[in-house]
């Protein structure tokens, strides 16, 4: 009989020890990811393939359990049963080539009073580097089972699976010695904590006492929950300081002393002078070659996103167009059909179309992570990032934000400094994400002339590139200002492992790419799906009927305008009719027929124009049109008319929606027929004959899109990650303000220079 309660196994370990690879081996790539993509920042779980009653939870990779970063907090909370039922067994994945530091975390987990199995991974790579680890001796020394494995090849995984099904006895906790001076105070502090937090199990009390001694942040968090304990810790710290006791080192020094002995006993080392990884690093982090390689890689990624993705995007575009027309031909001509084709298919198509780019970006990011290059990029960039108030660790979140700010904001969890994390989150949405891309593409294609600059680069491409640069520059400026004036906190520091280079495994990179993109598409799709329907309603209601609205003055004026238009369009028709009479008079049949055809054509044009006029009248009087008109006075200084303003209102939910909105307003059906929309935008005129869109207006609009925070999902995720509405509110306000001022400067400045 299967146990009704599945056995819960947590997979713990340092970053870069092959934890995810082992997880995939054990679960057969069938992982369930809660919520959002990122670098293992959410709870990932799956079932053991060979024994489905075993539930495996993949913990974020951490070096220690002292809850400093969000990742460490999550790992600690899961292991202590703070979030959900405590795991029944912890499998600690350990890099055989880097035993000492890896065992640090293992010793902490053993002390939590949980059954532990050590998976001694990458024994092959360690052996190649002249390092042999005696698993039996290690098992004896730690008091837990040790299984040597090579997760990438699947070696030893079966043994591990068998081991997981027979939970070993609890190991002896605290086999290491805490320095005397500190050790003497522990019973007193533990008693105080146990008194104020009676639900805390004994092993956890001990850990909490150590954490509170070592970390100010932990001590602060106890001040409200257990004030007497916090006061005792404070006074203990003071007395240690007076006697010059290095109490902050106490736990670390004790554990490493124990582990150092163990490692000396169980390993034999005949290491050569340098490993392959060291030789790669000599080039990749070289003074000159390093930065050059980094820039080349960035260029390659951008090139890939902008040109290699094009064929796939064209394919998607064609597919969506086909689907839309197929639906139209099969379904009856009804309002609901319109909703389906103009609203839903067009709207969702607008998201799917840039999926190829997102896939490519996630592929490259995955490759950088898997090979170990991501850490080198942080190493190379740290000096520059520090200048603007960030750290090398912010490189990954900011690069991810080029795909989408959401995984970028999530990836900031790996930063241990709270201030760095907050600043990174606050500026991440300034990186031009893929949702801006279709907007950039539409307006640049429509209004930036196709010229070569210096015979080398196209003006359109250059404009696109400068959009990205503007975003990056503003992100740096905003980070510097936020750090200097707004977000206070502890001095940032940079402590990062440079993991050995590894050959990336395409299956894993591709799997993660598909998973992350899938999560992104589902999330975006849901929002766009809902919004498209709302948008279609806003543009279609209230329904107006020009003939039936005579009593209203506005409608009357409108009708007059329509009549006038009709009249001017009819005039050539009358002329043609006159010509027809003349032709008939002269009995010139040939001429008569051609004139007749001409007349019919003109008549058709008149009907089309009337229909279009009626449609634009509908839009102007719909809810969305009224919004636009309401906003027009505020947006006029930026060069935007009511239609652009209406588009911007809808784009505040999600940027790419502006294209659907413009499509509906210009009644060219939908966004994916971008040529028709492009032409409609170019042809649009104010009543006095001036064009609505000039290159200057387009520039102003582009600049607005670079800076404005028009994405509800980003606000929602920022709220979740910062735990308050305050930061997303600040984020929205500062970005919108920058967008407005920058657009104002572009438009008014351009006019002063006589452009537009």
């Amino acid at each position, binding site marked *: 009989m299967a146990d009704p309660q599945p056995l819960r196994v947590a997979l713990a370990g340092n970053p870069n020890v092959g934890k995810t690879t082992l997880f995939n081996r054990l679960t057969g790539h069938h992982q369930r990811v809660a919520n959002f993509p990122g670098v293992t920042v959410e709870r990932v779980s799956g079932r053991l393939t060979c024994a489905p009653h075993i539930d495996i939870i993949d913990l974020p990779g951490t070096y220690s359990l002292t809850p400093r970063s969000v990742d460490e907090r999550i790992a600690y909370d899961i292991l202590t049963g703070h979030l959900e039922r405590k795991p029944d067994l912890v499998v600690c994945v350990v890099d055989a080539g*880097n035993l000492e530091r890896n065992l640090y975390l293992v010793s902490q987990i053993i002390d939590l009073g949980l059954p532990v199995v050590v998976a001694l991974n990458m024994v092959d790579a360690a052996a190649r580097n002249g390092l042999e680890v005696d698993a039996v001796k290690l098992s004896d020394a730690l008091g837990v089972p040790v299984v040597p494995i090579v997760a990438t090849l699947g070696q030893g995984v079966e043994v591990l699976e068998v081991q997981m099904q027979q939970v070993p006895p609890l190991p002896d906790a605290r086999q290491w010695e805490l320095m005397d001076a500190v050790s003497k105070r522990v019973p007193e502090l533990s008693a105080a904590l146990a008194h104020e937090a009676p639900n805390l199990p004994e092993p956890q009390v001990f850990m909490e006492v150590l954490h509170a001694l070592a970390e100010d942040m932990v001590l602060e968090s106890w001040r409200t929950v257990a004030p007497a304990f916090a006061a005792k810790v404070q006074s203990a710290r003071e007395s240690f300081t007076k006697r010059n006791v290095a109490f902050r*080192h106490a736990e*670390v020094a004790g554990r*490493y002393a124990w582990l150092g002995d163990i490692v000396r006993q169980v390993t034999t080392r005949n290491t050569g002078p340098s490993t392959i990884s060291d030789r790669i690093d000599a080039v990749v982090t070289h003074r000159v070659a390093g930065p050059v390689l980094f820039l080349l890689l960035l260029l390659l990624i951008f090139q890939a996103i902008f040109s290699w993705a094009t064929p796939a995007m064209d394919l998607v575009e064609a597919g969506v167009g086909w689907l839309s027309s197929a639906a139209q031909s099969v379904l009856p001509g009804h309002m609901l059909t319109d909703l389906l084709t103009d609203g839903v298919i067009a709207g969702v198509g607008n998201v799917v179309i840039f999926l190829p780019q997102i896939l490519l970006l996630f592929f490259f990011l995955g490759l950088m992570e898997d090979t170990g290059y991501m850490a080198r990029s942080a*190493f190379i960039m*740290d000096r520059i990032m*520090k200048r603007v108030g960030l750290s090398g660790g912010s490189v990954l979140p900011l690069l991810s934000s080029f795909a989408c700010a959401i995984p970028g904001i999530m990836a900031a969890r790996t930063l241990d400094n709270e201030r760095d994390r907050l600043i990174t989150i606050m500026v991440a949405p300034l990186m031009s994400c893929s949702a801006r891309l279709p907007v950039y593409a539409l307006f640049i294609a429509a209004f930036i002339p196709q010229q070569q600059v210096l015979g080398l680069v196209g003006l359109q491409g250059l404009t696109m590139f400068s959009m990205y640069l503007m975003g990056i520059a503003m992100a740096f400026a905003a980070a510097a200002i936020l750090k200097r004036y707004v977000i206070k906190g502890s001095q940032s*520091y*940079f402590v990062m*492992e440079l993991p050995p280079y590894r050959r990336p495994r395409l299956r894993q990179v591709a799997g993660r790419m598909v998973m992350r993109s899938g999560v992104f598409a589902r999330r975006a799709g849901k929002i766009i799906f809902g919004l498209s329907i709302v948008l279609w309603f806003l543009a279609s209601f209230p329904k107006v009927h020009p003939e039936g609205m005579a009593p209203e003055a506005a409608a009357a004026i409108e009708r007059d305008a329509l009549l006038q238009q009709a009249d001017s369009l009819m005039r050539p028709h009358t002329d043609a009719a006159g010509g027809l009479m003349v032709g008939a008079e002269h009995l010139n049949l040939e001429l008569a027929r051609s004139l007749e055809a001409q007349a019919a054509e003109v008549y058709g044009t008149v009907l089309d124009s009337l229909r279009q006029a009626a449609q634009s009248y509908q839009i102007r009087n719909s809810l969305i049109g009224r919004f636009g008109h309401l906003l027009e006075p505020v947006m006029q200084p930026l060069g935007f008319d009511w239609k652009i303003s209406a588009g911007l209102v809808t784009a505040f939910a999600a940027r790419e929606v502006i294209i659907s909105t413009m499509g509906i307003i210009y009644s060219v059906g939908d966004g994916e027929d971008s040529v028709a929309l492009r032409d409609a935008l170019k042809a649009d005129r104010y009543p006095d004959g001036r064009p609505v869109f000039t290159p200057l207006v387009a520039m102003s609009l582009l600049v607005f899109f670079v800076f404005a925070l028009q994405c509800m999902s980003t606000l929602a995720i920022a709220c979740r990650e910062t735990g308050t509405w305050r930061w997303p509110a600040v984020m929205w306000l500062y970005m919108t303000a920058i967008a407005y001022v920058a657009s104002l400067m572009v438009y008014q400045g351009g006019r002063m220079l006589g452009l537009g």
Partner: protein
Amino acid sequence: MTLKDLRPGESGTVTGYRGHDAPVRLMEMGLIPGTEVTVVRLAPLGDPMDLKVRGYHLSIRKREAADICVVKA
């Protein structure tokens, strides 16, 4: 002397930290008194440093390195 003063290629042994507020993270990564450390190289812009500690590569900034006392080997 401190870790910051070691040049690329030079090694030393950690003797302690200056001040009591040194980040615990550095110690958790294995930089505790008695540990042997080698400065492998500096980043292209001169900071941070690439160290070899306990058989792996660790990168820290010079500002933190200036708080770590070492004896040159």
